[in-house]
């Protein structure tokens, strides 16, 4: 790290000493909002970056130095399939008549808008990931097309997986604490709902509503005053991603200049004049009352 480069405090998976390649950060469309957001690839693993921004109220001490930017970056692994779904959906160009086209791995990640997409082709087990949600044709060269049924099955599996591992995350358990005094069915439904929401946070609205339609929460629906952890809205999300983008350019609003009247040379001279022993003129002449 050279002093010219701004340092950042980041929590990320440990980098094994074997790998030579540096961590690459990319600008990719967020799968939920479609807005650009920051991701990273480290050792063939896709990571999403979250920025905790104290909005200028915190700084970091790094060894002997102080860094004014007090934000904390979190890099956590993300299943690349979440990224693939919206890309595949766009690329298959489905219409009412046609099921859409099959495309190769290379052309899938070829985009003028997001040149970083090509990095996704080099992720670990990318073909295996694509197999999970695509219809694959192999005629010497593998081609892929998004398969809606496969996507739904995969998404449901994701939800199941989360439900199974639910108790391992304190944050998740706390999010359903409102069900503690409720019957067990209710609690199970709350856990499923929370898991579903978590998965939906990585899906665009079409897929999210499609997935949610397959789940029913009869017990929870009975409770009139159930407290819901609100989902992050797209608007909020874009705000968050926007702030992530800005951090590179360090766009800060220029503080409003305090307008100082320009002084003529004579006035400047007087400003420097010693006024020792001089009382303000208003101490000699009283202000006139305005009629």
């Amino acid at each position: 790290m050279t002093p010219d480069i701004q340092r950042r405090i980041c929590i990320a998976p440990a980098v094994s000493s074997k790998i030579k390649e540096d961590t690459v950060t990319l600008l990719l469309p967020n799968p939920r909002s479609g807005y650009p957001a920051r991701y990273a690839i480290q050792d063939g693993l896709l990571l999403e970056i979250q920025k905790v921004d104290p909005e200028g109220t915190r700084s970091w001490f790094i060894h002997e130095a102080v860094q004014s930017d007090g934000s904390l970056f979190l890099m956590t692994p993300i299943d690349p399939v979440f990224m693939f779904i919206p890309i595949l959906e766009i690329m298959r160009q489905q219409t009412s008549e046609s099921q859409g086209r099959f495309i190769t791995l290379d052309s899938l990640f070829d985009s003028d808008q997001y040149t970083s997409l090509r990095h996704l082709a080099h992720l670990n087990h990318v073909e295996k990931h694509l197999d999970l949600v695509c219809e694959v044709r192999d005629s010497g060269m593998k081609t892929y097309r998004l398969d809606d049924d496969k996507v739904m099955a995969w998404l449901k599996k994701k939800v199941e997986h989360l439900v199974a591992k639910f108790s391992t995350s304190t944050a998740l358990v706390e999010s359903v604490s409102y069900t503690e005094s409720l019957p067990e069915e209710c609690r199970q439904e709350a856990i499923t709902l929370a898991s579903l929401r978590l998965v939906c946070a990585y899906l665009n609205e079409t897929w999210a509503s499609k997935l949610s339609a397959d789940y029913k929460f009869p017990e929870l629906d009975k409770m009139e005053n159930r407290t819901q952890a609100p989902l992050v809205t797209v608007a909020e999300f874009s705000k968050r991603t926007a702030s992530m983008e800005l951090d590179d350019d360090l766009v800060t609003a220029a503080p409003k200049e305090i307008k100082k009247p320009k002084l003529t040379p004579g006035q400047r001279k007087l400003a420097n004049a010693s006024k020792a022993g001089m009382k303000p003129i208003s101490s000699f002449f009283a202000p006139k009352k305005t009629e």
Partner: protein
Amino acid sequence: MLEARLQTAALLKKILEAVKELITDANFDCSDNGIALQAMDNSHVALVAMLLRQEGFEPYRCDRTLALGVNLVSLSKVLRSAGNEDIVTLKADSSNDTLSLTFENPDNDRISEYELKLMDIDSEHLGIPDTTYDAVVSMSSAEFARICRDLQVLSDSVQIDVTKEGIKFAAKGELGNGAVTLKQAANVDKEDESTVIELNRNCSLNFSLKYLNNFTKATPLSSRVTLSMSSEVPLLVEYKMETGYIRYYLAPKIGDDV
């Protein structure tokens, strides 16, 4: 509604030169008496009061009092485009926030018109009481300007002593001392250069030379200047014009740290 016609732009130019180095913005208070201005400098130790009586204009019309807030640097810039001999007409309206200036060249048919944006200035008017000063010295304005300029090289402040013999300006500084004394003499031949002292009591006061030098910017307005002093009250430096005056008031330096 104000309409005031001034025979020569030179007068207005000189007035601006005399105040713009002391104050930044000021209200020109127009009434049926004429146009007046009163403002303190940024440090509030000096005050300038200017009056142009309505007799100085031909014609002069001002049916209701009007305060025209002017940035003096802007006004002096606009006045730079007027010839010294141009006839100036000032026009302003309470409904408008501009001051209109028309410059007419009497020799050819050139007419230039300018509009200057006005501003709202909150200014407090100080009531200046009529004072009987201990000493009133009338002298050549050029002489006063020269003394202030000469003593400035020695010190930032000057001690002025007035006795019935004359007026003495003295400065003490790191590089040395200096003093200029003008004897009272009614020089009949050169009335403009004579020094006339009206004295009730001897007085000795200290003033900032930088401020006094600033006041001498008004020298072109009058060949005479009057210094009026009493102990522990502001010095009055007055330049009289044919139809008005510019008065500067300056707080004296009092105490040991002079």
